[in-house]
């Protein structure tokens, strides 16, 4: 077929699909409009990274700066430090953040006693609601040299000397991961619990009749049934990894738990943006750094999406 004819066929095919799918397309339309208005129009603000943006004058009247801000960023040792810390912190947290909710949901699902199940589930998601300000206040106190964690460690014989766990760069990433896990596992497990709730009971019933034990049932039924949910959450988690995972807690943790003693490991790119950009009124500089963050994030997400599609056939697009 000639190119002209091909196009005509494609167009008429599309036209036919649109007519067939008119309800579906109409249902999508409001969402599309909403995205354009509330997401894409403000997104134009990202161009400020290439200007010396003066918010009052607006983008068009601000002086053009090209890649100046990016050059400055890449020459700053502090910038690279903050990138390193961001990855260190994020990777540590993401490993836990992906695994723990799955494990927790699976275990919770296996509890037979309904009351116990309800209590445990309610207790597990409550920490999600405590603001980081309060959580930080609590944990800083508990991890101090005379805090409760040291009391327990010393009396159980794990260490001889009480340590200020948060006051050195070393333990920072691990402790942030632990605290984040405590706070968010129960909450993100809800997604998996919903997916598990959708599994038809008959599948389990027939497995029992075939003689499968608890663990066997979990491995052959529960896990495969929620596989697509797991992969979607994994893709999203990797995509938002540099912000601290789905809860995006990196910045909060860095600001609240960071101090001059652990600064070498606690200063992440987002804090860099706040300290060196926003609080000094350097909008364009801050937006340029933020643009780098967004790009990194997007690349990670796309990568995860592609790999997932190839390996497990589940992907977002």
């Amino acid at each position: 077929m000639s190119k002209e004819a091909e196009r005509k066929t494609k167009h008429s095919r599309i036209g036919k699909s649109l007519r067939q799918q008119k309800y579906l397309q109409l249902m999508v339309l409001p969402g599309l409009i909403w995205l354009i208005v509330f997401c894409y129009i403000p997104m134009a603000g990202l161009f400020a990274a290439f200007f010396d943006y003066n918010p009052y004058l607006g983008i068009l009247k601000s002086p053009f700066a090209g890649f100046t801000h990016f050059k400055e960023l890449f020459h700053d040792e502090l910038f690279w430090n903050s990138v390193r810390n961001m990855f260190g912190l994020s990777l540590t947290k993401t490993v836990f953040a992906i695994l723990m909710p799955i494990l927790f949901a699976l275990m919770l699902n296996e509890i037979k006693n309904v009351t116990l199940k309800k209590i445990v589930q309610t207790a597990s998601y409550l920490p999600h609601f405590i603001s980081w300000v309060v959580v930080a206040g609590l944990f800083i106190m508990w991890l101090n040299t005379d805090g409760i964690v040291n009391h327990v460690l010393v009396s159980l014989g794990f260490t001889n000397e009480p340590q200020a766990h948060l006051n050195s760069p070393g333990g920072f990433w691990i402790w942030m991961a632990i605290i984040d896990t405590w706070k968010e596992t129960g909450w993100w497990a809800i997604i998996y619990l919903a997916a598990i709730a959708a599994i038809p009971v008959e599948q389990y019933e027939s497995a029992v009749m075939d003689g499968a034990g608890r663990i066997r049932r979990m491995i052959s039924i529960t896990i495969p049934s929620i596989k697509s949910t797991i992969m979607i959450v994994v893709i999203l988690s990797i995509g938002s990894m540099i912000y601290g995972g789905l809860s995006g807690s990196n910045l909060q943790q860095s600001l609240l738990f960071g101090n001059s003693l652990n600064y070498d490991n606690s200063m992440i790119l987002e804090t860099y943006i706040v300290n060196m950009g926003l609080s000094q009124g350097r909008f364009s500089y801050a937006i340029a750094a933020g643009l780098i963050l967004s790009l990194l994030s997007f690349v990670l997400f796309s990568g995860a999406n592609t790999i997932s599609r190839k390996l497990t056939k589940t992907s977002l697009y």
Partner: protein
Amino acid sequence: MSKGKKVVSILMAVTMAVVFSGCQSNKNAESSSQPATGTEATASSAQSAQEPLVIKHFYNYDWFNTDWTSSPSGQEIQKQANVKIELSKATSGDNTKLNLMVASGNIPDLITTNKDDPNIDLMIKNGIVLPISDFIDQYAPEIRKQSEPEVFKYYNYTDGKQYFFPSFLVTPYDLQQSDYNAVSGGDGVSAIRSDVYEAIGKPDMSTPDGFFNAVKAAKGKFPKLTGWYFGAFNKDLTFFKAGEFQGYMFPATQFGIHVYDVNADGKLTSGVRNPKFSEFVKFMNKMYTNGLMSSESFVDAQDIKEAKKQKGDTIVLSGIVNDFNETVKTQDNPEAGWVPLPYFADGKYFKDGSGWTATLVSKKVAEPERLAKFISFMTSQTGRELDAYGVKGVHWEMKEIDGKQVPRRTPEFQTLSETDGSKYQKETGVSTYFAFSDDYIHGRMAALTDSEKTDYRKSLESIVRPHKEADIALGLIHPLSTSEEGIIQIKLNELSKTYYPKMVMAKNEAVALDTYKEFLKKAEEIGLAKLEAAWTAKYAEFK
């Protein structure tokens, strides 16, 4: 299923109804809430002289109390000046709200923020604020006479005009007044537990060696206590940012170190180049490596420091003057209080006195003349007294003490201020609307005369007073944060944050001094010399 459908459709209908009715009713609410920047004044000028002038005033502090307008002091001020003030404030500790206002061009009549806020430069550049000097000269020249001369001397912008009105300047005149608190509550000072001090024989601790030996001996006798502790009120302090050296910066003051060193030839250099700096590093490192200081001094926030003070967890505590008085005892030994310690001989506590807030006037002000008259009222003696002391006869009165007329709270309110300060503040409205405050007048009510001061207080003051220094110009030479030197300064701040603890906590003296050298080298690489040149140039302009 059909029942479910019914429920859902009803909910949808309700949602739609709310959505659409909301749009309608809120349109009205919205239009009336647009910041109209003081255009409520009616048409005829005769009538506008009767109606109170509506002033919209924004305070860039999230802790500001906007209920001031309903307090006695607030109401009296509004009545006498024939104004109606509408207060708004920042919603969080950063500048976001002000940024948004500047970005949308929608600023209220008056804006009060820190005098080094980068937004000030932005507002001036964008031409949305009036030069205060012109404004005053045109509509209310008496304001110049009602203010200290320094108020109009140091704050000119690059175009030679002054764009904001500063508050709380400490001028040489103030320092000479006998009823002026030359030593203020926030000045830094150290104290030692009295029981420990007795136990080691009350030695002389006014030298680094004396201090070290004393704390070492004390720690030997009281091993459970921390040796030396200093909590930070403000986590941001570095060696390169102008401000009082409090908390963990306080030890540097003992060696005469501050941000700026003014050399004989007029050049300004950074305090980190001061010859005494290595002495300072050595001393701190010695204290740390001998277990006489805890690293938590670098990180603890104000409330933890307060708790440690009350418990008496430490032998020597470096805090502020207001931390200590004769009634403060330690928890484990109710007999033990805190004995103030003298400064080291080189000690210098520097407080530039260049003021706190800057207040700007929007160009869109509808009735500039009446606004100027309001500011005139606020800077008059009556206005200042209402703002700082409250309503005369109700909250305060003039008393004669030590042969001087001084303002003092009435007995009822004095008691209230001592038991519940926030209630006192709410019920009087004093010290809340501080945009136009003058430090001397403002402080007269709290400044104690000789006969009112306790011996304890007098001993504190005699320790700090000789070492206090001030210089308004030095408070104003920091570069604009978006300029090249400004960026250098920010980077140096970050450098300071990590290197200061590193120097102090180095393994031994040799490593500490090496770290110091590294610190200097890195500072040079970042551009310290350029920054110092900028300081020097700016300082020269003030002379």
